[in-house]
């Protein structure tokens, strides 16, 4: 095997998942599959940050409940989110009595958490790990863009941060859905500076990881039923297909993007959804369900993240991006 792809010999299993999504998100494809559909995106809290934290807590609790394990059986929590100093994840971890590893990969956090959890279990250090992440439109908007009530127009390349959280319990044995390998991403920067065009910034990172993964595992794209990118949106999806095509790999037949499919009606979302919660909720609800029912057998989850901050973009820096890939296979 190659340098950057890890194959898990002991095949860690995804036991169960827990998901929660906001009112706008549940109107789309994931609506039928989420564990809880919120009517009110504040989740009964007085700030959006608290709501995001509570949603993440809910997803973790629900994943544990669905796994039939007790909370005391869980050895570790691997989680992160988009807010500064990953406050949602660390504040959610207050409520749990197991150790916490905070990770940050922007919107790629879900696959990063899966890859690290699977590696820790495969090596035999831990038996049961919960991996989760989430995001909230209103808290992300306030951190990265303008106040909510300000009357500005959104450019057509922009995406809409998904209000959702999702988590999964991963264990050494106990289900037929396995994490079989992971490819850690390189930070790729093609020089895109437009913070409203994340899809174009992130597509080269996704392309780099997908190509390395296929090359190092010596497989064709057809090996997978689906190659699922995180939140490239409609434009980014088109670009990633073009970029891989240029390198002689055709993923157009089995590529989908969580951001592109999550919203049913495009009004203000333009290119689709984004945010850490996007791939987290789509994978842990809809795709996990398809794996469980056997409709899908092999998935490559490639969540992509834009590693910028408001300071870096203010200083005119371009947007470095990353994508981590995990292959999830049913046996």
């Amino acid at each position, binding site marked *: 095997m190659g340098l950057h792809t890890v194959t898990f010999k002991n095949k860690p299993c995804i036991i169960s998942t827990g998901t929660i999504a906001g009112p706008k998100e549940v109107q789309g494809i994931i609506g039928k599959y989420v564990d809880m559909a919120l009517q009110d995106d504040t989740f009964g809290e*007085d*700030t959006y*940050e608290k709501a995001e934290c509570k949603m993440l807590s809910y997803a973790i609790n629900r994943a544990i409940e669905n796994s039939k394990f007790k909370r005391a059986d869980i050895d570790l929590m691997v989680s992160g989110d988009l807010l500064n100093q990953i406050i949602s994840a660390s504040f959610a971890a207050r409520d749990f009595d197991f150790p916490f590893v905070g990770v940050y990969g922007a919107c790629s956090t879900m696959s990063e958490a899966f890859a690290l959890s699977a590696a820790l279990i495969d090596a035999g250090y831990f038996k049961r790990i919960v991996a989760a992440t989430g995001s909230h439109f209103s808290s992300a908007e*306030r951190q990265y863009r*303008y*106040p*909510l*009530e*300000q*009357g*500005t*127009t*959104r450019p*057509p*390349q922009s995406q809409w941060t998904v209000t959702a959280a999702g988590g999964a319990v991963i264990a050494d044995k106990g289900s037929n859905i396995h994490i079989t390998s992971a490819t850690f991403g390189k930070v790729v*920067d*093609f*020089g*895109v500076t437009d913070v409203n*065009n994340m899809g*174009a910034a992130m597509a*080269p990172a996704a392309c780099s990881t997908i190509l390395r993964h296929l090359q190092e595992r010596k497989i064709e794209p057809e090996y997978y039923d689906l190659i699922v990118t995180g939140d490239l949106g409609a*434009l980014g999806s*088109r*670009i990633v297909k*073009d970029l891989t095509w240029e390198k002689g790999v055709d993923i157009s037949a089995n590529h989908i993007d969580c951001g592109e499919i999550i919203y049913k009606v495009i009004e*203000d979302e333009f290119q689709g959804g984004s945010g850490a919660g996007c791939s987290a909720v789509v994978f842990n609800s809809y795709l996990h369900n398809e794996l469980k029912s056997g409709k899908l057998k092999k998935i490559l989850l490639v969540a992509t993240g834009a590693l910028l901050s408001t300071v870096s973009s203010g*200083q*005119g*820096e*371009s947007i*470095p991006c990353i994508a981590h890939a995990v292959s999830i296979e049913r046996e």
Partner: protein
Amino acid sequence: MTGKHKENFNQNYLNYVNSFDPPTKHFKNCFRAFMVGGLICCIGQFLRYMLERLFGLSGDVLAGTVSIFLIFLGTFLTGLGVYDRIGRNAGAGSIVPITGFANSVASPAMEFKTEGFIYGLAAKMFIVAGPIIVYGVLVGATTGIVYYILGLFGVV
């Protein structure tokens, strides 16, 4: 690679990405901005006539009172959560008039209230409007000085 090494960036890629830029609908945007901006101006003019007729105001007092009414209207609609919806469609039509300025002050104030009344609401209130005030005052002062100097030479 940092911003200092921009020559290393993939210019071909950037050109390729730009080729996807959807064409801006200038006519539609301008029409909407004109209609909404015009409507706000008409409301202002209506208020002006009414205040003049009913209260006999005139001059600076009249102009100031109309502005106060419009600022109240902008802030009120922001509070109701309506102004951002107008702005999403009208663009500059609702940003440029004084109601837009009121919106840019009221919206961060609402947003950051959760971080307290001093360091949240009051400190962040001018996060959007601050630059407008700073450069507005700067340009005003510069123009005044230029006008004064030109006056000394008898040009104006």
